[in-house]
């Protein structure tokens, strides 16, 4: 059987950008098919196991590039399944950034005020909790106490976690077994399916071509469910609207590969990639000082020694999120748990004079792993990433059965980015090395380059066709009917975790997508409530719909 299937809307990827689009379009009456290259796993499938082949390696993907590596989701639910559920909104100044282009990089139509109603829609759809100090783990508590001791403030981070179900197991990155993390598997995706959206896991989209009727044909390969190096049959689906949401490490690659059939892509496709300015530091806590200086004590007389306990980031320092500071001098510092495996190898020994990511001294700090405190920096980087020519298939040459591949991203940080990282490093040291609380070292960039868990901007929105691949309604310039709604669309680093902003931009893109679908003869309407039926968010965005529904 080789005949081509047909649908109204084809969504590539099922993370925040894809799931939100799939839900609204299906709820509005369109036929929706979602192609997701990873497996469809649910709570019972999520193992507490580092063994290769467990859910941990099935559900996420690590793509090594030249100067930058990307850790992302690879499963139904995408990044929402493997992220740490931090859901802050981006600070106001972020939307005024210029970066390297000499003008405001966000579209004129988007700023914090105009995005807030869309943030509200997300907050109504994904249960988000402002965590209290009782929810804050030992690691977050120590970070808060150290910030306070240094004269800084510290905030519990809003998170999409059901506190009544969380066991503080710290396996969140392998998918939440207890359904405490409010991933898309629990809200937008089941609601999309209830409205008839069809989700096909293990379908990796390779390229897009045109059909004679002005629509698009999406070409996919079916992937083996255990060894992602193996491919099965190929197929095609025709659609009137295509929504790309494969993640900022894959969406531009699909478009690059499609250039032969679709025609020239906007210059910004595969350019201006941002790693959200991310960088990690490891602090090795002096347990005696944590007790004496910070006054911390937990059960059994311990002061800290709690690196394994918890639920990802719970406390952030936002003192440098000050809009009066110059660009590239603003950043946040967030406590983070990062599990062993792909993370610890990049940690370096505090005070070492040469490379120390392996060897005798590294082993010694591994023995003190329980006393590690990891601080996650999010600075303003300079959108330095560029994707080279795409590989033959997928977004990377896959090395391991799962998880590990070699991609085409090249990232060469500019002096502004390097200086911003150095400033953030110095701030972490100033806070945590004060009075001997800890010794701190940044993770090395020499092994796999910089390391991002929040890839952004490789196909960004904007008003300037020269520096943005999408117009301000997320439609791909020169290719009407193709929309991008994932982190690729976010124009630049956000200085905070980006899931909330990616989601809000996706919500904002829906009225325009609905309008485009209607122009193509799809009987679809805009106006679905939140997945649980709530409607206050819908009322909040009502005044904004007309401008977004017009070209």
């Amino acid at each position, binding site marked *: 059987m080789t005949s081509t299937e047909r649908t109204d809307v084809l969504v590539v990827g099922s993370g925040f950008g894809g799931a939100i689009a799939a839900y609204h379009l299906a709820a509005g009456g369109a036929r929706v098919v979602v192609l997701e290259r990873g497996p469809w796993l649910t709570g019972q499938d999520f193992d507490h196991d580092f063994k*290769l082949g467990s859910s941990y390696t099935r559900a996420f993907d690590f793509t090594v590039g030249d100067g930058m590596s990307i850790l992302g989701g690879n499963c139904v639910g995408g990044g929402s399944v493997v992220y740490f559920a931090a859901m802050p909104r981006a600070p106001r100044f972020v939307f005024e950034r210029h970066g390297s282009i000499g003008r405001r990089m966000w579209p004129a139509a988007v700023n914090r005020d105009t995005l807030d109603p869309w943030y509200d829609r997300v907050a109504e759809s994904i249960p988000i909790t402002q965590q209290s100090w009782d929810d804050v783990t030992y690691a977050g508590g120590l970070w808060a106490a150290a910030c306070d001791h240094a004269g800084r403030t*510290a905030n519990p981070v809003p998170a999409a976690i059901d506190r009544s179900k969380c066991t503080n197991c710290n396996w969140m990155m392998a998918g939440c077994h207890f359904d405490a993390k409010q991933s898309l598997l629990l809200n937008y995706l089941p609601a999309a399916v209830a409205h008839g959206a069809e989700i096909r896991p293990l379908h990796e989209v390779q390229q897009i071509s045109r059909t004679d009727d002005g629509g698009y044909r999406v070409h996919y390969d079916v992937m083996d469910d255990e060894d992602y190096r193996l491919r099965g049959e190929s197929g095609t689906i025709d659609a009137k609207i295509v929504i790309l949401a494969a993640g900022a490490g894959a969406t531009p690659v699909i478009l690059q590969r499609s250039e032969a059939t679709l025609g020239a892509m906007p210059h910004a496709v595969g350019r201006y990639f941002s790693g959200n300015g991310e960088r990690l530091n490891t602090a090795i806590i002096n347990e005696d000082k944590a007790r004496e200086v910070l006054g911390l004590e937990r059960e059994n007389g311990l002061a800290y020694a709690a690196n394994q306990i918890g639920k990802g980031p719970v406390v952030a320092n*936002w003192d440098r999120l000050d809009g009066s500071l110059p660009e590239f001098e603003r950043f946040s510092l967030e406590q983070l748990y990062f599990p062993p495996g*792909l993370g610890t190898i990049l940690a370096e020994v505090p005070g070492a004079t040469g490379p120390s990511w392996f060897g*005798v001294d590294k082993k010694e700090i591994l023995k003190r792993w329980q006393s590690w405190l990891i601080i996650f920096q999010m600075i303003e980087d300079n959108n330095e990433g560029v994707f080279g020519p795409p590989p033959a298939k997928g977004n990377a040459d896959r090395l391991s059965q799962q998880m590990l591949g070699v991609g085409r991203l090249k990232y060469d940080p500019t002096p502004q980015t390097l200086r911003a990282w150095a400033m953030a490093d110095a701030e972490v040291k100033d806070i945590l090395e004060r009075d001997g609380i800890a010794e701190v070292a940044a993770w090395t960039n020499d092994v796999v380059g910089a390391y991002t868990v929040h890839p952004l901007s490789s196909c960004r929105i904007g008003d300037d066709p020269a520096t943005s691949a999408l117009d301000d309604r997320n439609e791909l310039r020169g290719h009407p009917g193709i929309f991008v709604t994932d982190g690729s669309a976010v124009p630049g680093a956000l200085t905070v975790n980006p899931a909330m902003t990616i989601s809000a931009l996706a919500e904002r893109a829906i009225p325009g997508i609905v309008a485009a679908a209607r122009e193509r003869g799809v009987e679809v309407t805009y106006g679905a409530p939140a997945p649980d039926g709530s409607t206050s968010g819908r009322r909040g965005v009502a005044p904004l719909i007309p401008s977004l529904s017009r070209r």
Partner: protein
Amino acid sequence: MRPPSTDVDETRTMTLEAFADTIVPGEKRSPDDRAIAGATTGGGAVQAGALDLLGWDATGLTEGLDGFVTALTGHATAYALEHGLDLDPAVPPFVSLTFEHRTALVRRLTTPGHPEKELWVSLALFCNMAFDSAAHMSTADAIAQGHPGLLAMGIEKPDADGRWRFPNFSYGRPLARLHPDTTPTGSPS
């Protein structure tokens, strides 16, 4: 005299063990252990199962291991010549190097700009994973069996159902002032 294939296997095993031991060093398994340099006490990557992990084709490295061994032998030989070191013909060249020289050579091979850097980094990555996450074993089994890496790092034992739960997790009190520009829902304003 042993069959040549055994020599090849022994060369391969010893060379890979010496590389793994350079990444996460351990103590010698016996006084005449040559592959493990004995730079630290306690088990290192070798005792943690690095060769088991590298030998599992799920890593994607297995088919290339002979190439790694050949290349590392060549690099070690050249390194010894460059530094005027005498290599012991009784063991493979990389094994013959002292721990300090092994470390210096691995640093060279993994330094940005080295043409083979990505290859050696990938080998190092899995050697480290054998130690810090026992990626070739069920984590619960690894802990139950006394896996040297997970034990050294202090990974807690799971509950009887193989799941981790930490009922005590919070100091349970305010530990800092909130940033003044925080919205009611907890975001930066």
